[in-house]
């Protein structure tokens, strides 16, 4: 899975779950401040990402450093590189 596919799939999953405009989905967008997601939304964000990329996140703490949409792309890319997702 290339990086563009990751971006497309992450954006599609978040846009649908949180009814976000595509224009708002830029790498620098802050998940809480710009996209308006709160702590409950983060719970659901993990679920939709797990579904979109067919994986189970074993270590939820690994999300702690995520601040922006770009951080999510990176996080998913690392899971791909580690072979967790294909």
């Amino acid at each position: 899975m290339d990086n563009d596919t990751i971006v497309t799939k992450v954006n599609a999953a978040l846009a649908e779950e949180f009814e976000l405009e595509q224009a708002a989905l830029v790498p620098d967008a802050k998940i809480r401040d710009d996209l308006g997601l709160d702590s409950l939304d983060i719970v659901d964000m993990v679920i939709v990402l797990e579904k979109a990329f067919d994986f189970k996140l074993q270590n939820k703490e690994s999300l702690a450093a995520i601040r922006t949409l770009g951080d999510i792309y990176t996080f998913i890319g690392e899971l791909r590189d580690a072979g967790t997702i294909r």
Partner: protein
Amino acid sequence: MRRVAITGVGLVSVLGLTRSAVTEALYYGHSGIVSEPERLQHGFRSTLTGRISGFDPGTYLGRKHRKSMPDFAVQAYAAALDALEQACLDVTDMRSERCGLIFGNDSTVLSVLEQRKALEYAGTTTGMGSGHIFRGMNSTISMNLNVLLGNTGPSWTVSAACASGAYAVGQAADQIRLGRLDRVLCGAAQELNWQAVCAFDGLGAFSTHSPAQDASRPFDRERDGLIPSGGAAALVLEEYSLARQRGARILGEILGFGWSADGTSLTVPDQHGLARAMQSALLDAGLTTRDIDLINAHATSTPLGDAAEAANLLAVFGASCPPVMALKSLTGHELWMSGASQLAYVILMAQEGFTAGTRNYEEPGPDTMGIPVLTQRREHPPHVVMNNAAGFGGANACIILEVG
């Protein structure tokens, strides 16, 4: 004692989604009851239910908010916005410790079932989704409205079976009369789905009459059970002089509130409990039976319930019982919501200058003789209305309302 004005009402009802649509249904006696034959496949005795047509929760709230709300909570939100709009109030006008939210509700069955399904599907609690806990709590209405309206005063949910709505409005009025609050957004809601009422159907309490629109027959000789219904109702109550000062249109005034419990049976109302609530409300209002010109009966169309209400009415009013209107002949039994919605229906009638007739009443049974059921619509509004509510466990409530 301070006085309590009603300045706004809102409804999501089987009779309609707007005040004008509901008013029209009340005026022409349109029924909100349908037959859902698929209930037979679930093992139901009765196919009958109230049905809300055309309500789209997505019109009112995005997914972010809806995930923590069952449909009936969204309906309560929609009704609340309508009530505030009629009262010419903005949500920001509710942001004070002197303003409160009190709603009646006594179940959120479907949400709890969905919770279990979500766990089975996900296989882990962290995969269930964030909204289930808030959908499955009985206080889901007041909890969610707090956030949606930015409320900063007290808020709570009242559970008293089919008297929940009346208890909510009665408690709201009491807060204002006692000086604890100046303005309360109150009401009730009732989930409308087969899952919530399957066990109730199993008691043989629901009508199996056909056609559906003729099935709810309060006080009639041929009545054979209630029809479960639902939706949401909201009312804005304000301290009377403050409402006047801000130039609000006063739609009605709550004159008295009474309550009681039978203390006898879970399901069978007795011959005295509701009468004590009615007498208590009269005393609270400083009125006598002669001051009441319309009874807005609880009257669910069950053989035992209507017989008991008839006995209680005759115990209070004797041979001089004023006309008795039974709105559940149109709506079915809105259960937790009905004690609030029936007040809202009276407000709508008064605004339009009529009194609705009772549908499907032809002749009394031996146990409802002497009840002057109002069958034909009157082209003038009621004035001082006694509104009854009663529920499982013998929970009774009575609210006396002045309108018109």
